[in-house]
């Protein structure tokens, strides 16, 4: 136990207070489930941290008729419960309720999941990509909104001087699904994740996590699905298109090698479309 360490710990009660601590060099501490494992990875814990759990604005989910706002300090468990009755967000709910294990889900936050730079298997990243989420950042110059694809691409640089405060979602989905492949039935990191959503214009949005170092949209498959003849949402046909348009470079990791992560994607796409067809929003198909 490192009881003699002189560490600066600020439990901020406002975003301004958190930013002031960031300006002094403090690292953001959310649930702690990633940062507290730094010593296991051979990384020292930061000398100064600022905790966000006492900032009320960051710990709530606001559900409006046309949009949803999620505070960065909302836990997976709270997010899953809050959105369970919100049609169209089945995929995001499945991501929040299927990640890690129940104890971690009560602690790990939305912001933490998106800001852990080396965490390729984050469940919320592909789910929020499929929702076309907008990330609200607080910088030293003010607040800034950024599409989640751009945020994920640029986050190493962005997070040096900004912190994520909220996630904004439009309520324009009619159905979504989130399919993950862990090696055990549950409780470990998924080898690959496919998040699939259909919006009100019947456009498919597909995102993949855990296969490459950073989650991303599967635009080649989205375009192929859009170009295909009706009915496009056929599980078998979607899996064939996924095989044909698989442009992923799988990352090697201790759970699985890269080729395997890439190879399972068509099967996960088939499962995702089958799950979509069972949702209330697409039951008419």
């Amino acid at each position, binding site marked *: *136990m*490192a009881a003699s360490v002189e560490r600066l710990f600020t439990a901020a009660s406002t975003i301004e207070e958190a930013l002031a601590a960031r300006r002094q060099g403090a690292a953001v*501490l959310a649930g702690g489930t990633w940062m507290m*494992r730094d010593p296991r990875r051979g990384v020292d814990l930061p000398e100064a941290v600022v905790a966000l759990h006492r900032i009320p604005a960051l710990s709530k989910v606001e559900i409006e008729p046309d949009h949803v706002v999620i505070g960065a300090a909302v836990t997976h468990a709270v997010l899953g419960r809050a959105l369970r009755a919100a049609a169209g967000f089945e995929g995001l709910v499945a991501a929040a309720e299927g990640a890690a294990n129940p*104890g971690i889900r009560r602690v790990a936050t939305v912001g933490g999941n998106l800001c852990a730079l080396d965490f390729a298997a984050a469940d919320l990243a592909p789910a929020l990509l499929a929702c076309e989420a907008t990330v609200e950042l607080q910088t030293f110059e003010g607040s800034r909104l950024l599409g989640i694809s751009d945020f994920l691409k640029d986050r190493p640089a962005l997070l040096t001087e900004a912190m994520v405060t909220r996630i904004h979602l439009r309520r324009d989905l009619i159905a979504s699904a989130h399919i993950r492949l862990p090696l055990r039935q549950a*409780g470990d990191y998924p080898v690959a994740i496919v998040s699939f959503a259909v919006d009100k214009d019947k456009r498919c949005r597909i995102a993949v996590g855990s296969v490459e170092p950073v989650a991303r949209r599967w635009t080649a498959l989205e375009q192929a699905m859009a170009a295909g003849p009706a009915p496009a949402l056929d599980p078998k046909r979607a899996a064939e298109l996924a095989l044909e348009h698989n442009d992923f470079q799988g990352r090697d990791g201790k759970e699985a090698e890269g080729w395997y992560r890439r190879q399972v994607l068509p099967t996960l796409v088939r499962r995702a479309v089958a799950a979509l067809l069972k949702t209330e929003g697409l039951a008419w198909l």
Partner: protein
Amino acid sequence: MVVTFQLNGEDCRFDGDPMTPLVDILRQERFLTGTKAVCREGFCGACTVHVDDEAVPSCLKPVGLVQGCAVTTIEGLSSGNQVLHPLQANFEAADAVQCGMCFPGMVMSLSAFVRDNPHASRPEIKAAMVGNICRCTGYERIVDAVADCLDQARKAGQLVGGIHV
């Protein structure tokens, strides 16, 4: 930094590194060794405690985050000289405990679960145990004991607000 919180109903004061994992304070400063530090990564569940009534892994909880909170460990659920929590009594009756390493965490996770889910099904019980690993592989008997505990509470008409100590 000084951190104060309630520990098993009593005031607790810690003066040291606020990033110290809660499990280390429980075991090394308070000698509450029922909470086990096994994987230290949040995967095994052996270090599960209640923080403000929620079952969470204490290995990943920096003590700075429990300022002002109520922490309950397995020792706070029942001292052993008192009446056992209904779940503990069922585990004992079902002879569900094997080596005992995972059990404090198992009891802490599942005691919160039965409190909040008095009508839980068998698959729901299993889903609640995902984060508690038993290397003796005695899961089925544990699930049986939880299901029995819920059945008994239902028959006794205790289920309006769930099972409480």
